[in-house]
């Protein structure tokens, strides 16, 4: 990137700025306020609101600063009577059809229109004609819509198009009749809610949070997403111990993801304050008996005495949703309190083969956005690592990157690909082998792809100047991951960096791998231990293995299939109630902050583990402060050396753990195992031709997402209700079958009546 400097004069002061900088950004950076609505740094230019007017010498008329690139010697005025007059006029036009009832609008208090008008507009309205009144309605269970508040900045449609690649929401009609909406009136998209986030007015509204409280009454807590491994930064809005909403609005938080979040990160927070949370410790005194509420003292004492009986036959399992602090403490629990090497992470996708063979640096999301070539092998980022998917889309769309997808399923993201290598069902391993060992051309037979396709791919990589990124996830076998991670480094050259990006499934999969060095496979731990301490729940297909155990302790938020086997259940605190860190798929160690006090009697997982440890006579050197836990992590995990909470304070400058690429290892064993696997693949196999439906993973109802009612409707196929004016939650049962039709009808008649009344009254006034 060239950093040639040029001179511009703004309001008679001279500045040196980078060539190609946008005028509106420069002015704001230098402290000259410029109002704007349609301008949004990360999106294509629109220039429809005309609030950002400035005078530029030698140019006729006022210019929109959002579309102007600075040139050498440019002389700009941002404030004058002429400009002010124009801006006042513009804001008056914007308000011409806008209801002046901010007190009942859900965006009131954090509305850009409100702020701009207070700062730059006229507070008195001259417009007396009838307004184009329209009722508030629903576009989906998640997106509520109040069309009359729209100022047609089209941020929402651009976001949907450019970030999400969905084009689900567009502007229909024209002139004064323009509305933002969809064909058919219903949004069947992934429901990311980014359109809600970027809307500067109260037109698109969060259907989960709507009318719950007001923005200024909430405390905002910056923290990290608990669902996806992208580690998106967000802000929890809470009031009086209750979490009301989650946003990524840039006035509250400024993380790697900007204002981007996905449907789970933004809306699936209902579990935090769910009435189903486990309230007190529960003990099952007799196998087959009932879980009986108890006190912490008694439960810890009970657990301690039972674990002592089991000697060192105790296994420890941690969920990869927990904080680094909790997972680290659980590992210490295994090695120090019960002297056992039986510890595991309850995540089917083991990252160890990846990190043990890391031959190239991990890439950040910013590097994805500016990459030149991206190779995606398996995985489905648009459903699992949504922010990674967004960065890929923009790299292709705005950066012209080459994007190659290797997959057995035509995933939606493949539509953006410049090359799609459609391999046979389940033969991604064969691709890994063919890619790593190009000498053996027979492998392609198993692949269901032609050798020329692989040659094309290698040619593209060979021609790449800049960043080349390889991404893959858990649908490759462990050997294939090891081989790929190990071969990646060899693609680097003087003009090309090779970077790796894993695609783990959980928010702290990477951290779990770091914290639990030496972990064993989950099944092995479950089979060989007599007693178990399990933090979080096991995958449902593994719970059978818990039958016939001497003693099982589970730390959980909810009663699940795993707690059915538990002898003791201890209430754990959710991510919104604890301090700690998560490590994302770019290796960034990011803070998790306590937004509310632990609900009921729950405690952070690491506190519970250290309480039991103390009962068993082990002391970790920390009991109360997660700061001390993190210090212990930094002292014993090499990649985290020297890290402290204060260094992680600023979410806009995330800190990467130091994974040192390993020297190329001898992988002949892995290669041999991989070759055996590939040889066992059938030569002919039918291909998957169907593109998976939007949201087939995102909208799944799980223990956590299921506590937000809207997800049940989404999972049931997001049915369109008869009546768009009434919440779909009133019109459907949670399984998507219709309900209370009469009630919905009655409610809508009322709304329509009110509007018709208003119209007749208003038109009489106008006609008179």
């Amino acid at each position: 990137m060239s950093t040639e400097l040029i001179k511009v004069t703004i309001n008679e002061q001279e500045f040196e700025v980078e060539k190609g900088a946008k005028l509106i950004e420069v002015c704001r950076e230098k402290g000259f306020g410029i109002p704007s609505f349609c301008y949004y740094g990360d999106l294509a230019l629109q220039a429809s609101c005309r609030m950002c007017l400035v005078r530029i010498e030698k140019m006729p008329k006022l210019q929109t600063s959002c579309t102007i690139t600075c040139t050498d010697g440019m002389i700009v005025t941002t404030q004058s009577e002429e400009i002010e007059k124009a801006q006042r006029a513009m804001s008056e036009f914007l308000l011409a059809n806008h209801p002046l009832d901010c007190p009942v609008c859900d965006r009131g208090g954090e509305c850009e229109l409100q702020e701009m008008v207070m700062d730059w507009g006229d507070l008195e309205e001259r417009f007396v004609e009838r307004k184009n009144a329209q009722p508030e309605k629903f576009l989906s269970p998640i997106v509520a819509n109040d069309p009359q508040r729209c100022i047609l900045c089209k941020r929402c449609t651009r976001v949907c198009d450019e970030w999400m690649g969905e084009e689900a929401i567009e502007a229909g009609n024209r002139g004064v009749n323009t509305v933002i909406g969809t064909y058919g009136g219903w949004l069947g998209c992934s429901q990311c809610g980014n359109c809600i986030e970027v809307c500067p007015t109260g037109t698109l509204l969060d259907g989960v949070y709507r009318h719950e409280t007001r923005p200024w009454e909430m405390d905002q807590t910056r923290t990290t997403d608990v669902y996806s491994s992208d580690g998106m930064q967000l802000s929890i809005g809470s009031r009086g111990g209750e979490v009301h909403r989650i946003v990524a609005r840039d006035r509250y938080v400024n993380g790697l993801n900007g204002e981007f979040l996905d449907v789970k990160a933004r809306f699936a927070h209902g579990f935090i304050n769910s009435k189903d949370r486990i309230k007190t410790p529960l003990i099952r005194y007799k196998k087959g008996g009932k879980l009986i509420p108890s006190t912490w003292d008694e439960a810890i004492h009970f657990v301690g005495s039972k674990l002592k009986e089991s000697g060192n036959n105790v296994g420890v399992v941690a969920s990869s949703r927990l904080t680094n602090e909790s997972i680290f403490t659980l590992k210490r629990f295994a090695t120090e309190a019960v002297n056992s090497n039986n510890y595991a992470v309850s995540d089917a996708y083991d990252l160890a083969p990846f990190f043990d063979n890391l031959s190239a640096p991990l890439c950040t999301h910013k590097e994805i956005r500016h990459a030149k070539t991206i190779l995606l092998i398996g995985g489905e980022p648009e459903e699992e690592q949504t922010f990674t998917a967004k960065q890929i889309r923009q790299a292709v769309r705005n950066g012209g990157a080459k994007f190659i997808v290797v997959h057995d399923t035509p995933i939606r993201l493949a539509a953006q690909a410049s090359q799609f290598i459609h391999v046979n069902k389940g033969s991604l391993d064969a691709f890994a082998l063919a890619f790593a060992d190009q000498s053996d051309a027979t492998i392609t037979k198993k692949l269901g792809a032609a050798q020329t396709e692989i040659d094309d791919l290698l040619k593209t990589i060979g021609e790449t100047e800049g960043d080349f990124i390889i991404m893959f996830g858990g649908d490759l076998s462990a050997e294939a991951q090891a081989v790929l991670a190990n071969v990646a480094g060899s693609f680097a050259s003087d003009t090309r960096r090779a970077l790796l990006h894993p695609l783990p499934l959980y928010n702290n999969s990477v951290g779990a791998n770091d914290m639990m060095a030496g972990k064993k496979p989950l099944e092995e731990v479950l089979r060989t231990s007599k007693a178990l301490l399990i933090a979080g729940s096991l995958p449902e297909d593994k719970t059978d293995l818990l039958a016939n155990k001497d003693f099982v302790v589970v730390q959980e938020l909810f009663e699940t299939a795993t707690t059915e086997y538990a002898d003791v259940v201890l209430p754990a605190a959710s991510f919104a109630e604890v301090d700690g860190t998560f490590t994302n798929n770019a290796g960034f160690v990011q803070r998790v902050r306590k937004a509310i006090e632990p609900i009921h009697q729950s405690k952070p997982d690491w506190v519970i583990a250290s309480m039991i440890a103390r009962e068993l006579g082990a002391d970790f050197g920390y009991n109360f402060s997660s700061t001390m836990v993190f210090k212990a992590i930094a002292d014993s995990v090499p990649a985290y050396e020297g890290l402290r909470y204060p260094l992680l304070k600023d979410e806009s400058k995330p800190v990467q753990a130091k994974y040192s690429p390993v020297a190329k290892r001898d992988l002949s064993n892995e290669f041999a195992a991989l070759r055996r696997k590939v040889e066992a693949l059938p030569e002919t196999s039918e291909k998957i031709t169907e593109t998976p439906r939007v949201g087939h993973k995102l909208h799944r109802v799980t223990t956590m997402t299921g506590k937000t009612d809207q997800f049940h409707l989404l999972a049931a196929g997001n049915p369109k209700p008869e009546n768009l004016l009434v919440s779909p939650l009133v019109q459907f049962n949670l399984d998507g079958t219709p309900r209370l039709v009469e009630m919905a009808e009655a409610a809508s008649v009322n709304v329509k009546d009110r509007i018709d009344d208003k119209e007749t009254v208003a038109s009489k006034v106008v006609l008179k």
Partner: protein
Amino acid sequence: MATAVPTDFTNQVVFTEETATFSPEVIEEMRSHLTKYPEERKRSALIPLLFVIQRERGYIDNPGVNFLADFLDLEVTDVWETATFYSMFNLRPVGRHHLQICKTLSCKIMGEPEITEHVCNRLGIHPGETTADGKFTVSLVECLGSCGTAPMMQNGFDYYEDLTVEKVDKILDSLK
């Protein structure tokens, strides 16, 4: 003071998955439009194709939109956006003769209100409505680029210019 264009079509469309079918000749015609544009810019053919749909199906109906979205690899909402923007595309059935009266400035000054009043009175409908026999639909549209001969209206692709009440009567009489 009736409005010609309902502000929101969205609630009225009963959305179905049904896709329209066309004869091979029509498909061929649609393909021929595609050849005018670069392959990766297929969507540029949207407007000519909307005209074809309108001619074949009478108006831009739901199955037609579904067909186009498929044909051009677009989302239905993309098609909706374009179709609703232009007044020459009808999103609802129209009569045999679709009278589109220009209501923009020049025509307004030169007597559009009188013409509209007369046409509507004679047909007994409001702008935006269709006569019971399905013969006429009246719409008010934006400037049709014939300001020099204002006031004017359009029927299908024919322009009627320099309108007066008498002239309108003759025109209406002549339309079958």
